């Protein structure tokens, strides 16, 4: 068995004899090298597309996000406009008016109203039943009392949606037109008198209705419409919302260390091998402005911290192990080399100003949100030590720099970061919400300066938890 106490001396022998060994110039190899250099020098340089690519990716993603948000928001608005029967140009046609009549317009009286489509269908069903029942009934006899009633209601300014429905019902009940389900108002020619009366009433109603609809669209009072989408109830607020979030996020930090050139690959590997993630977290607050369509703009302050463990290899020391027999008599001594590892902890702190664009879907109990944007770094501070570029000495990450150069190896400002999140927020009450938001943050630039031989970058994944307070 090899004498283990000589292990260090054994290594030392090779080190001292070979480490600085010089075999003399190898000039017989120069010719080949020279040829290769010439060949490489002639080949064209590949342009560095790094920044252009990054910018294109960022703008494409942002544009796509914004377009998607607007598109969804437009669809939802358009749908709600269609349902309320508001004409695109602001005018209300006769047909439109009848559409409106079939819907519960007076929302001030009905805070939460069933879907107009559902309501419309229900009415039609009733109407079809009525049609069957009253097929042969006298049209005039039905119309007159109702119109009179409407006129009196209109005169007293108390027209109600239920009355409009009845008018529709009357028309549908006319001889020719069970197809008035398509909202076509066709009056039997034989009932001219009734039609004239009806038309004059309709004009009055139309004027009144336009006023009512315009007052509805311009109203600043809060209204909610419950749209039944399967099992979810979706609220579309007519108002802009303001909210303030306070959050804390435990995070996982993923680091990449890349050598800028061939010579520092070993250094990069040495750092990667001796340092490891130990913990990360973020906390902060942000203010949000949410449009009625669900488009959200957010900004605030985000403070994040990454902690890493650094195993500093100081060298080896000889360890002596004495083996005893049952009678406690030493029978053998074993020597072995033990690595001396000193554990150090490094901290990286970032203060960012996020500028986020998002889209919110407001449900009865939850608010879903999709957010993306940029974080503008306000300051970055570091503490601790890492192995220096010479692979031997330790450098202080808070202040280390190249000799005679003031720029530190680790930047005081790391620039922009990409931020994204998906929020599932629970409504505690009308104003307070619990936040649960998986987040991702990627610093576009390395935290290391151009003078440092490595590029050190971070990607952070976390779950933001906190509270949101809505001001409305």
């Amino acid at each position: 068995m090899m004498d283990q106490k000589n292990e260090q001396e054994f290594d030392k022998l090779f080190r001292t004899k070979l480490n600085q060994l010089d075999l003399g110039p190898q000039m017989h190899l120069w010719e080949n090298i020279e040829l290769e250099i010439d060949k490489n020098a002639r080949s064209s340089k590949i342009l560095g597309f790094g920044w252009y690519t990054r910018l294109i990716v960022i703008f494409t993603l942002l544009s796509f996000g914004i377009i998607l948000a607007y598109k969804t928001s437009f669809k939802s608005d358009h749908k709600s406009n269609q349902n309320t029967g508001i004409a695109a140009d602001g005018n209300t046609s006769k047909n439109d008016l009848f559409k409106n009549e079939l819907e519960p317009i007076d929302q001030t009286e009905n805070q939460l109203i069933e879907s107009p489509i559902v309501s419309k269908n229900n009415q039609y069903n009733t109407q079809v039943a009525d049609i069957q029942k009253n097929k042969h009934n006298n049209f005039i006899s039905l119309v007159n009392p109702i119109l009179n009633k409407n006129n009196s209601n209109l005169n007293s300014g108390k027209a109600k949606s239920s009355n409009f429905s009845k008018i529709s019902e009357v028309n549908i009940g006319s001889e020719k037109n069970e197809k008035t389900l398509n909202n076509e108002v066709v009056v039997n020619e034989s009932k001219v008198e009734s039609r004239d009366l009806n038309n004059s009433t309709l004009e009055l109603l139309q004027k009144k209705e336009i006023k009512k609809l315009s007052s509805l669209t311009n109203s600043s009072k809060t209204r909610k419409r419950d749209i039944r989408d399967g099992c979810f109830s979706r609220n579309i607020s007519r108002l802009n919302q303001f909210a303030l979030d306070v959050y804390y996020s435990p995070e996982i930090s993923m680091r990449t260390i890349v050598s800028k050139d061939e010579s520092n690959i070993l250094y990069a590997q040495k750092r990667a091998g001796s340092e490891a993630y130990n913990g990360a977290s973020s906390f902060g607050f942000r203010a949000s402005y949410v449009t009625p369509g669900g488009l959200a703009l957010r900004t605030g302050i985000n403070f994040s911290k990454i902690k890493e463990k650094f195993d500093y290899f100081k060298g080896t020391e000889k360890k002596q192990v004495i083996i005893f027999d049952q009678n406690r008599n030493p029978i053998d001594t074993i020597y072995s080399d033990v690595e001396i590892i000193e554990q150090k902890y490094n901290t990286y702190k970032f203060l960012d100003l996020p500028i986020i664009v998002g889209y919110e879907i407001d449900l009865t109990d939850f608010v879903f949100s999709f957010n993306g944007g940029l974080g503008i770094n306000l300051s970055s501070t570091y503490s601790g030590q890492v192995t220096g570029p010479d692979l031997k000495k330790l450098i202080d990450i808070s202040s280390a720099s190249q000799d005679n150069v003031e720029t530190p190896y680790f930047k005081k400002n790391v620039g922009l970061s990409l931020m994204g999140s998906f929020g599932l927020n629970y409504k505690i009450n009308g104003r307070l919400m619990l936040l649960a938001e998986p987040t991702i943050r990627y610093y576009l630039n390395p935290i290391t300066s151009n003078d440092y031989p490595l590029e050190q970058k971070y990607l952070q994944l976390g779950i933001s938890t906190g509270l949101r307070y809505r001001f409305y």
Partner: protein
Amino acid sequence: MDLNDIIKGCLAGNKSSQKELFNRLSGKMMAVCLRYSRDKMEAEDLLQESFIKVFMNLASFKNDGSLEMWVRRIVINTSIKRYHKLSYQNESPSSDMMPETIVQSSAYDSMIYTELLDLIAELPDGYKVVFNLYAIEGFSHKEIAEILNIKEATSRSQLVKARVVLQNKIIKSQKVVI
């Protein structure tokens, strides 16, 4: 010629500066290459490949450290890359693992560098790289594990085995005191 002038000349594409730089450093770097190679031919290939990289990347050299250290790191890295490429890790050792007798430390002193280089060259490639990185370059097992993409335990065991194989070879070369 001053080293800074040589670097400037190399950056300007001056052939004589490049030749001068190669002239100054090729001897030491050849010694490094031999430690990571099986034979002289392979070492020469490594040296050529490394110096081409040196000249192509000299612009990225920060003039704050030793140029020799910088070139040396390129040579070591090129050697390790070649080792990965050829996937020598699974190669089994050629000789028996247990040394036949104890080698006294005084036996090493009389050995010259060529003998030591020959001994290292005969090591299986996995052992050779680990031994070079640990015993000569001064890396820890954790760092070697990262560099070679192996487990720390593998690095430790390969080092132990490398030492044993070297000891056996020293004994066999009859330059030992029994």
